[in-house]
């Protein structure tokens, strides 16, 4: 049952991901990325990360991707067929390198953790909103506060860069 769910959404995720890379138009890429995120959210659930799953949907698939799509619209970025490729290296060396990367990463993660048990749904509830919130406001108070600086910078930065030229 779990395996089926996993395989299903894993498949979806991979397909969307590949699609996102292959799609020529940014909008479709963005949509497929949303797909990836969605399926990942499900997997998070399977892994017992309810809170994360929610955040994934709301923040990521929701806010962030909307922002992306908004920008794409704003710049009405067309499909990139017209764009000509200027980097041979990326293709000559890049492609094989990527394949090797994928290969060794998969190899490593499979070989690297011998005897890691199975993921059984429900035998880990540490990902509940309560648990997460609890540790966020106790042990991880500092990073939580510090992120506010991060956000602030992000705002300032966006404003500085994107606002219309004054005077």
């Amino acid at each position, binding site marked *: 049952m779990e395996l089926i769910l996993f395989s299903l959404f894993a498949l979806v995720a991979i397909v969307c991901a590949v699609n996102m890379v292959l799609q020529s138009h940014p909008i479709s890429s963005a949509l497929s990325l949303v797909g990836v995120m969605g399926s990942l959210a499900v997997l998070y659930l399977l892994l017992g990360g309810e809170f994360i799953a929610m955040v994934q949907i709301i923040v990521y698939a929701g806010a962030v991707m909307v922002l992306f799509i908004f920008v794409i619209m704003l710049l009405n970025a067309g499909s990139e067929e017209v764009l000509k490729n200027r980097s041979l290296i990326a293709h000559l060396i890049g492609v094989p390198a990527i394949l090797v990367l994928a290969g060794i990463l998969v190899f*490593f993660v499979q070989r690297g953790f011998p005897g890691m048990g199975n993921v059984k749904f429900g035998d880990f*509830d540490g990902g509940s909103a309560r*648990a997460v919130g609890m*540790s966020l406001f*106790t042990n991880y*108070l500092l*990073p939580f506060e*510090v992120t506010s600086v991060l956000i602030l910078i992000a705002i300032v*930065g966006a404003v500085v860069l994107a606002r219309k*030229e004054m005077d």
Partner: protein
Amino acid sequence: MAGNLPANFMPTSADMLRFLPETILTVAGTLMMVLDPLFARRLPRMFGHISIVAFLLAIMAAISANSVPGLAFSNLIGIDGFGTFFRVLLLVIGILSVLASYRYLEREKADTGEYHALLVFSIVGQCVMVTANDLIMIFIGLEISSIATYVLAGYLRDDKRNNESALKYFLLGSFATGFFLYGVAIAYGISGSTKLDEIRIALANPETSTMMVGVATALMFVGLAFKVSAAPFQMWAPDVYQGAPAPVSAFMATGPKAAAFAIFLRIFLTAFQSNSDSWEPLIWICALLSMTIGNFAALTQTNLKRMLAYSSIAHAGYILVAIAARSEIGTAAAMFYLAAYSLMNIGAFAVIIHMCGKGETNLRIEDLAGLAKRQPVTAAMLTVFLLSLIGVPLTGGFFGKFYIFQAALQSHLVWLTVLGLLNSAVAAYYYLRLMVMMYMHEPGEVSNNLEPLTPSLRAALILPAIGTFVLGVVPGVILTFAQSGAALVK
């Protein structure tokens, strides 16, 4: 432990003290944001002053915090000599960058409020990095510093070079961060913790698969090597430094780099010490590559900023030599060298800021021609920095190099030492080209109609120069501190 509250989550006053410098800076930054709409027109220089004051306060805070070393905020950060050393260094860098920025911002008519706020914030991030004891803190600090720097790099938003530099830095930076993060994930997977000390213990445990340790090391190495612009991950640096506003380049070449090296040292000498035998050769290679590529590429440069970018790559190589030594003295050497390097680098950039003119039009080496005749002081200062970069005795650069290679030799890295020293001989050539230009050519029109040194820039020149000499003549002052700090990295 999900659910029931841990006993020690309430921040104690000690915790607060240990985090005081960052707090001060954050407050100052926020204050500036508040004041910006009010005073941006009337008192553009005010923000610079505020940040300098903030930095000075932060320095005091950092020093006083060092009097009560220890972990804080449930072991997420730890105050030790090492961290304090870098904190103070970063704050000094901050002050110098601000000094170097005044005139530039005026010239470019850029708004000062956000600029200084971002500068302050990015230093907050770096301070977090250097004091962090937990990969989460490191990651967040890294991102704060990086994002702020991305924005600063593209600060003059109508300048094509700025945009491009920002974009390149941003994309490649995030790309590298991705690798770093994956490495963190795997480290977490192996050890079940993100705390450096716990990771260290877990990795030392013979059960753990050294293969995955290797993978984690490799991935994090990629991220860090990118941040310190070490070969083969150095390619972004020249473009970004060239494109960014000169003061920002000065800052980028020193602040984030120093912080990145700090965590580099921390992570590799604490968390990943168990497999140091396997990564030491890689550092060896990267060090050699960085020195060689940096120096040889710099030989043919005509653009001052670009040349300094390459030289900073080479200097990263020297520091990697110290890391490859994997000893306390090596760490101390790296710390000392970073201090010396930051001073002379900011100084050199300050000269560029002074002479580059509006829109950074005069960046060719030829534009230095005859500077010594028109503005002897400026030329003399630049000479000091160049000699220090070459590594001529009685300058900080020399003693730093000397100390690094001494560490290397004590770890029996004979050939790395010899090659490194030969490299520094090569480097002498392109630094000399600048001196040749300043002293041995007749003034060109650039140096002829050069504006006089503004007080702020004068300070930004003289302070590093003094520092360079102090580090060269009486290195003891910093050295002892660096050594004590190095002892604490565990």
